[in-house]
């Protein structure tokens, strides 16, 4: 049975109406992992025993006629940057290669309470730093649409796992685009919530003023179900905020007729791929025929977003990474003769190149004499970017842009120049700096050589505007079929 190809919505209703059992659903996903993941490498750790035991408990409930909660029995994967007690958590790094998490992240606690069945931990760029998953210390993940290409990053494993039907949904994290960009590259839906909407307790920190946990799913409706389950204020995360507390899911069918969509000219630039631009403009035409009103707008400071991000984020990274010192956990150099050597050797050997680069960049921009010129300046530019969005949302309800200027590139193609890799995030970074929510939904494919490569459209909303962007995404998906297409992998039939 190909139960692993179901959406969350379909899986829930199928189990509830006893068409199939939770154990059958979980087994289908585990078989998909067994036959596909050697090629895709989405997973770092597969937790089969835990998954089967959880599935049995759900089946007992179904057998006793107890109605299922929306996410109950649904098999999910989790980016290996989230703490799951008793399970190896590596952050994609050698420095945590053997580290076993000692507590559950708040989102994990919440999803356990909802009855989610966890299949395992997925691959990522080391400590969530990257746009291709090539920075993982444990090898790259491959794009299910073309195994010679990247799935995007940093949540490449979580995106690929959903695209390859190796789970029903997954969790990722997004700091500068790390959910939205791989969602676009893998032809799935990926949501970065409003900053503060989801608790960061138990998320291994990268840049604390930007990090957010969010879902990858096969549909915007599925993403809404997961978002409603993981959101909420948390006493363990003082930056978390309940917003208006209203669930998104009940509003997905409300009319989008008359909804005002802003198209910022700064996101349709020379040098971006012409096919990508065409597909996003076609999607906008579809939204117009569905009754949305389109407006050209300007977000004038967009071009400075990446520069502001690559000062702000390394600064925060340099602070957050200081805890990996070989003292309390993680790799500790056995050759150190003194304390300084413990620090320098453990970090020198245990941390990868991109992580070291960003730590050093951050150390430099925060150093005495440079703080005003770099970090303080970047904060002021960040403020200007926020103002651009706030001004725009006074006259439009939603902003639509391409998720990326390009399409999935070949593994190794951008590995030698860090700056070229950073440019992959040029359309996702401004929304991160402003703290607003963004979702990437599939809007078509480009043909390159023998491969069909996915392209994503990014929907941005005002703070706590997840309801608007998911509603538009859901209704766009009802009108089009891009999100239902599956990669034709060269695997043995599952």
């Amino acid at each position: 049975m190909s139960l692993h190809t179901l959406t969350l919505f379909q899986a829930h209703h199928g189990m509830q109406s006893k068409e199939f059992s939770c154990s059958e659903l979980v087994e289908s996903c585990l078989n998909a992992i067994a036959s596909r993941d050697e090629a895709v490498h989405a997973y770092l750790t597969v937790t089969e025993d835990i998954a089967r035991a959880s599935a049995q408990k759900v089946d007992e409930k179904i057998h006793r006629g107890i109605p299922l909660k929306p996410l109950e029995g649904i098999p999910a994967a989790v980016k290996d940057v989230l703490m799951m007690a008793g399970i190896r958590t590596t952050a994609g790094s050698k420095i945590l290669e053997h580290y076993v998490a000692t507590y559950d992240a708040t989102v994990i606690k919440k999803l356990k309470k909802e009855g989610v069945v966890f299949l395992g931990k997925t691959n990522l760029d080391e400590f969530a730093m990257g746009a291709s998953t090539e920075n993982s210390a444990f090898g790259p993940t491959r794009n299910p649409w073309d195994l010679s290409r990247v799935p995007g990053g940093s949540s490449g494993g979580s995106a690929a796992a959903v695209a390859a039907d190796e789970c029903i949904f997954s969790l990722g994290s997004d700091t500068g685009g790390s959910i939205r960009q791989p969602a676009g590259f893998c032809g799935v839906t990926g949501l970065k919530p409003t900053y503060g909407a989801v608790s960061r307790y138990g998320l291994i920190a990268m840049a604390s003023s930007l990090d957010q946990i969010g879902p990858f799913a096969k549909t915007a409706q599925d993403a809404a179900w997961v978002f409603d389950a993981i959101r909420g204020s948390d006493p363990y995360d003082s930056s978390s905020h309940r917003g208006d507390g209203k669930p998104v899911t009940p509003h997905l069918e409300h009319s989008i007729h008359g909804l005002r969509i802003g198209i910022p000219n700064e996101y349709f630039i020379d040098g971006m791929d012409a096919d990508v631009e065409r597909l996003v403009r076609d999607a906008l035409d579809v939204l117009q025929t569905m009754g949305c009103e389109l407006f050209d707008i300007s977000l004038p400071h967009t071009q400075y977003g990446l520069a502001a991000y690559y000062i702000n984020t390394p600064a925060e990274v340099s602070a957050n990474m200081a805890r990996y010192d070989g003292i309390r956990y993680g790799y500790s150099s056995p050759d150190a003769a003194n304390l300084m050597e413990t620090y320098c050797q453990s970090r020198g050997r245990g941390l990868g190149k991109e992580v070291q680069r960003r730590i050093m960049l951050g150390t430099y921009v925060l150093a005495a004499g440079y703080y005003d010129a770099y970090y303080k300046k970047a904060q002021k530019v960040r403020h200007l970017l926020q103002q651009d969005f706030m001004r725009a949302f006074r006259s439009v309800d939603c902003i639509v842009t391409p998720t990326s200027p390009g399409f999935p590139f070949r593994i190794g193609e951008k590995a030698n120049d860090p700056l070229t890799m950073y440019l992959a995030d040029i359309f996702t970074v401004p929304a991160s700096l402003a703290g607003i929510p963004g979702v990437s939904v599939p809007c078509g494919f480009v043909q390159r050589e023998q491969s069909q490569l996915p392209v994503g459209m990014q929907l941005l909303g005002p703070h706590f505007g997840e309801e608007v962007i998911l509603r538009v995404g859901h209704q766009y998906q009802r009108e089009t079929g891009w999100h239902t297409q599956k990669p034709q992998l060269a695997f043995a039939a599952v």
Partner: protein
Amino acid sequence: MALTQHDTKHIAHLARLDLSDEELAVYTTQLSSILAYVEQLNTVDTAGIEYHYQVPGLEHAMAVDEVNACDAQTRAALMDTVPARTGEVIKVKAVFGA
């Protein structure tokens, strides 16, 4: 801002990173090019901009100042992750005279 290898070595020491000469050379080039890119912010007029570190909608998020001791099982799990220990005490190399 073009960094010298001497600058990079100093930054690496501040960041507590042991790097080889080859690594220092590569990072010097890469960091210099990234800094050159981000320096475009110097062209942005930010006169009079007041910024604030605020999560929209939140102010003065406070917590009660009381200790929540962790249970024995969590404590044991935490101690299990320590690279060098004697009983319940974390061992480190000498702090002075390094």
